């Protein structure tokens, strides 16, 4: 910590020197960052407060594809509202790496996305608090990750939800009027697509490996509606993969995969799939559905001439009459605490405008930062579906899930092969799903026992 600070200060000093030589940029005034009285982001009234502030701020982003077009447009729009504040974007191709080097210098700009390498306890070293976690949590989505000691340091740039990508036209042509809400309904729909259209009902993208691992993402919130399931409950449950009578839980997710394959509702030859071309095929309607996160929706839309056909539906599991989907925050915006007071305030004003007034979430098709905003069009099927994020693990057990997961070799979310085995077993008809899930449960229990994990009675 101490050396880090020393390095940071030295670097800052060196850079301040080079700044004086005429680089310009944002950090006018002392680079040391005096403690400034900052407002909280919820207290700012856009368009009214801080009209008198003059500052020029810089925002770092990884979106080099839109930095000079869309993002520049946002900046210009904002500058109409606040003519005294100049907003400038900088795109970084190697975002994480560059930020690791630039953050400690203190002179990198005013707003950035918090890189994954910065842990919770380190956030206060680089970023200014935006407000109180409890207050902000009532206003913005996905805050759970970026707060420390009750203060919120970052607000995610919207988020994505877990569901199923499908081609609306094909599903309609197959005669499906209502989207499925249980695994069996979903399989019936796939059968209907197979019978009535030429499209592949469900494309697994098996040979790429990771799209098989992607099925693991649904076993938590989508399948249980329990935000504690993935980081806590599953670790302490006996036989978490066992079949539940109401067709929820991990078993239900893998049931969809297994049955779809064994009933011949997937592509002809899973061994020779190709991810890049599958995006175009679903756009054209040669593929009817793919089980992938909502991040893939934009790519599928962009890969053909009929983006309006691409839809996104929640994973077909209903838990006690309610539907759930997991939502994950994107990169979180944070403000440089080494910038001058005026810059920090200007940055906060811009950030608030970006999160609340700009069309950024509509443009990117992501879940907006504001809780009060409706879901994007791409998630219109998620109306009435509760979007939750996984709760963090309880204190002292942060690594327990990973340990059990690795020890058991079930590899939820980190090893694609067990999911591949489900497909293989269904394809070659070597094992039924209950056998596979029984094996996973046995491995899981053995790992729990080896690691001395307490098993909760339920």
């Amino acid at each position, binding site marked *: 910590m101490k050396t880090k600070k020393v390095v940071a200060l030295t670097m800052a000093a060196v850079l301040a020197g080079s700044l004086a030589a005429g680089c310009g940029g944002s950090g006018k005034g002392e680079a040391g960052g005096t403690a400034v009285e900052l407002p909280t982001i919820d207290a700012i009234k856009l368009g009214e407060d801080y009209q008198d502030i003059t500052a020029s701020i810089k925002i770092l982003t990884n979106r080099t594809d839109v930095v000079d077009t869309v993002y520049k447009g946002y900046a210009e729009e904002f500058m109409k509202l606040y003519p005294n504040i100049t907003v400038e974007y900088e795109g970084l191709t190697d975002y994480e790496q560059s930020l690791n080097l630039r953050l400690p210098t203190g002179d990198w700009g005013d707003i950035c996305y918090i890189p994954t390498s910065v842990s919770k306890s380190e956030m206060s070293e680089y970023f200014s608090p935006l407000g109180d976690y409890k207050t902000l949590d009532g206003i913005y989505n996905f805050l759970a990750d970026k707060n420390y000691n009750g203060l919120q340091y970052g607000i995610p740039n919207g988020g994505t939800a877990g569901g199923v990508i499908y081609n609306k036209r094909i599903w309609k042509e197959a005669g499906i009027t209502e989207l499925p809400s249980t695994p069996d309904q979903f399989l019936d729909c796939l059968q209907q697509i197979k019978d009535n259209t030429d499209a592949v009902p469900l494309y697994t993208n098996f040979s790429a490996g990771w799209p098989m691992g992607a099925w693991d993402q649904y076993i938590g919130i989508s399948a249980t509606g329990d935000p504690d399931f993935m980081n806590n409950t599953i670790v302490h449950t006996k036989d978490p993969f066992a079949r539940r009578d109401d067709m929820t839980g991990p078993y239900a997710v893998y049931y969809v995969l297994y049955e779809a394959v064994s009933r011949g509702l997937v592509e002809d030859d899973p*061994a020779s799939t190709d991810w890049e071309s599958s995006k175009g095929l679903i756009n054209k309607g040669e593929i009817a559905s793919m089980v992938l996160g909502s991040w893939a929706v934009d790519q599928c839309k962009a890969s053909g001439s009929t983006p309006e056909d691409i839809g996104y539906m929640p994973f077909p599991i209903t838990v006690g009459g309610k539907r759930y989907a997991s939502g994950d925050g994107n990169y979180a915006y944070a403000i440089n605490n080494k910038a001058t007071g005026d810059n920090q305030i200007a940055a906060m004003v811009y950030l608030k405008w970006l999160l609340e007034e700009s069309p950024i979430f509509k443009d990117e098709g992501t879940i907006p930062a504001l809780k009060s905003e409706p879901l994007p069009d791409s998630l219109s099927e998620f109306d009435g579906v509760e979007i939750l994020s996984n709760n963090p693990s309880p204190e002292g057990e942060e690594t327990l899930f990973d340990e059990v997961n690795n020890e058991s*070799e079930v590899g939820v979310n980190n090893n694609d092969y067990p999911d591949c085995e489900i497909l293989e077993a269904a394809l070659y008809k070597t094992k039924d799903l209950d056998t596979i899930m029984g094996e996973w449960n046995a491995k899981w229990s053995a790992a729990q026992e080896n690691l001395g994990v307490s098993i909760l009675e339920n």
Partner: protein
Amino acid sequence: MGKSAGTAVGQKTFAEKFKSRKVQQMLVIVTFLFAPLLLLIVFTYLPFMKMVQFSFYNMKYIGPKKFVGLANYVDVFNRPEIFRALLVSVYYMGGAVVQLGLALFFATMMVFKVKGESVFKAAMFFPYLICGIAVGFIFKFFYARGFVLDSLLQMFGMSLEDIPYWLQDQSINNFALAATSVWRYTGQNMIMFLGAMMSVDNDLYEAAALDGANNWHRFIYIILPSIKSIVVLNLILSISGSLSAFEPPYVITNGTMGTGTYFVIMNRLAHENQKVGLACAMAIVLLVIIIICTVAQKLFFAYVFDNGTDDESKAAVRKRKREERRKNAQKGAAV
């Protein structure tokens, strides 16, 4: 310089010894060896020792490790999937034999005058220059349903229903994968054979031609005996290569559908399940298996093939001795 030579009388002082040609020579050798030895030790032997050490621990890449004795080795032998993976290597060994046969055939063709020899040589050798991962991607598309291979076969009149699923059908997918390594290494083996064949004295061919030997005779009686050591070497390399086959299954099928070789399983355990200790134990077990295979092959070839003398093989020596004995016996009987 001249001084040290001049005063070399009686007892030599240390300085004189130090300056002597022999010591100087040693010094030069040691200094020059220092860099390569250092590299060898730092990047080969030290990591190997570490691997041996890790194989006795239960450990991840990051975090504490726990000494578990031989538990990892016991685990290796208790896991059925690990030895099933070794059986997959049999396909690659079969491939290696085919590959050596093809390489020998092509090399022999090239030794006798062929038109466009260098073009052929370059074309055959080229696959070896492509990196294994790229080869994997080439064949991923080559074998994909309805892609290159299927289209070619359809051009020759086969219908798609009759063509097997090259990567999915478990009775054929390992053959398909082994074929990719045959494609890749045949050219390289051929060049090695060719190099050895080039060193055969031309006079031998001329003499053989005068004796009325045809090309087959030349191959069997001149070429093969002259390059037998390189054939054996290639065979040993191919077999140990087959046991550690990795790139084709890793890139093309990711070890799914029953194509996971020993290395693929090892990689999965080490990197996806973070069981570094177990993977190290697997590596050492494989090393032992490869050593056993190599020694067994050496012994086998030492008996079957040769190495009597440079002029005649052991088999020939045995045959000559037998005949001598028979002649002696006949002589004895005659006397």
